[in-house]
């Protein structure tokens, strides 16, 4: 196989994986931006989205509709969690917020185990999503799910870009993330903006969960854990709290992981995650603000 085609194949893999990381990281970063809280339960909204899709599919709903409802269920779960778990502790010390979000994670994952048992279940996808396309006489393959992941992520991110630059609610969310007091003073309804941030972030997680399940073919109650960690790394690399940073971080991380497996000696591949987390530590040590960070200093 020619090196050019091989590289193209790896680029497709990288964009597909990076899309998933970006989808999850954006939500994590959004919630952190507005609440200064790492929402560990964010990954569990992926689980909610995937299981809701599975259930609705089992009830006979066509896959597309089941997936759409599942994604929205992820968003709804985020709003519910904000209302009953995070709002009562808002403004508490960081440790309280951190422990609350960890507690929510455990509750949701154990609830998942209670309802669905801890064994992985098949995530059936319809035939049209099971196929793959080949180019250049089979040198380049991309599956329908890869393609769908890339396209849906692009659509979702374009919608998000429009939302946060063209609507009052989206601009208000960015304003509140930058300066909560000033947001109060211009009359923004901060409670509503926080709910909107959770709804948006969790809907993205729901989409990420459905795509993740479709790619791996299985769902399980702890399925959100690994993507959450990766999204966390992506968000830190990009600059925690920045939406653009989370996107950049997600795609960079996807590219990095694919490159480690594709271009380094195969003895290195098993250490992929170790390398990724080493990168996280390096960023925390040398560039804790990440690649993209908004100018925050107050000018006199």
């Amino acid at each position, binding site marked *: 196989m020619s090196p050019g085609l091989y590289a193209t194949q790896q680029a497709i893999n990288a964009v597909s994986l990076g899309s998933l990381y970006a989808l999850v990281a954006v939500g994590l970063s959004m919630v952190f931006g507005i609440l200064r809280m790492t929402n560990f339960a964010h990954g569990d909204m992926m689980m909610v989205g995937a299981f809701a899709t599975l259930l609705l599919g089992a009830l006979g709903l066509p896959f597309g509709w089941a997936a759409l409802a599942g994604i929205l269920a992820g968003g709804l779960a985020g709003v519910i969690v904000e209302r009953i778990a995070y709002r009562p502790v808002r403004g508490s010390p960081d440790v309280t917020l951190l422990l609350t979000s960890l507690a929510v994670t455990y509750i949701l994952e154990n609830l998942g185990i209670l309802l669905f048992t801890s064994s992985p279940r098949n995530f059936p996808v319809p035939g049209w999503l099971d196929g793959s396309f080949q180019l250049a006489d089979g040198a380049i393959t991309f599956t329908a799910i890869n393609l769908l992941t890339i396209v849906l992520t692009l659509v979702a991110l374009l919608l998000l870009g429009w939302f946060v630059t063209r609507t009052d609610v989206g601009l208000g969310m960015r304003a509140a993330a930058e300066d909560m*007091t000033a947001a109060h003073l211009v*009359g*923004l*309804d901060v409670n509503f903006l926080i709910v909107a941030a959770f709804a948006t972030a969790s809907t993205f997680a729901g989409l990420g969960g459905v795509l993740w399940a479709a790619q791996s073919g299985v769902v399980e109650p702890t399925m959100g854990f690994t993507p959450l960690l990766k999204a966390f790394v992506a968000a830190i690399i990009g600059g925690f709290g920045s939406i653009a940073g989370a996107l950049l971080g997600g795609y960079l991380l996807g590219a990095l992981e694919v490159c480690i497996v594709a271009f380094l000696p195969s003895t290195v591949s098993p250490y992929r995650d170790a390398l990724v987390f080493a990168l996280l530590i390096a960023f925390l040590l040398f560039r804790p603000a990440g690649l993209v960070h908004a100018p925050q200093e107050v000018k006199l």
Partner: protein
Amino acid sequence: MAKPDPGTAPLLAIEGLRVSYGPVAAVRGVSLAVRAGEVVALLGANGAGKSTLLRTISGLIRPRAGRVHLAGRAIDRLAPSRIVRLGIAHAPEGRRVFGSLSVADNLRLGAAARRERAGLVEERERLLDLFPILRERLRQAAGTLSGGEQQMLALARALMAKPRLLLLDEPSLGLAPLIVRAIFDALAGLKRVGVTMLLVEQNVAAALELADRAYVLRTGEIRLEGASAELRADPERIAHAYLGTGAA
């Protein structure tokens, strides 16, 4: 305490206001009034409780005791967003513009809480005429503006809410004298068109020149009040009230 009659009541009436940060009392029993069309200055040294008073009016802090009425309506238990909707805009200390948002988006958010959408475009045009430099910088991120430009933006953002009362917290803070002049000229222009203001300032001369009346606050209490002209004629009384030396 008798309920003020909305017909004759001042626009803003504060009675017996007490505010504490934990055990520390920052405002101890302040009463003051601002009538519609009036510009009232609130003077005092650092830590006198001026900003705390403005933040309490805006609903950022809950008072421990006392009432705040806007046109006869009690607002001291309302959320900040409700208070803005009722007509109090606040240009805070340190300007606090949204630095990552464009100048245009900052102005847009200033009007986000406003119910009455009619006249919004004209309002914005009028403000951009008042601060022409903002028109040149509309697409620029607010964080890239100079301090004086940010202060103009903070003012314009507050005015986009079309407030009945404008709270100004140290608009001259950290600005070069020439810029301070420009800001106060703009404020004088706003006064001429009837904007009611409660102004916290350290720059006593500029504040008294603009204001109709003034209160001097020290350690959370009003030590002196009077018409600006009167106070200007007697700087020693102001100094005494400020610093607490001798009789006020």
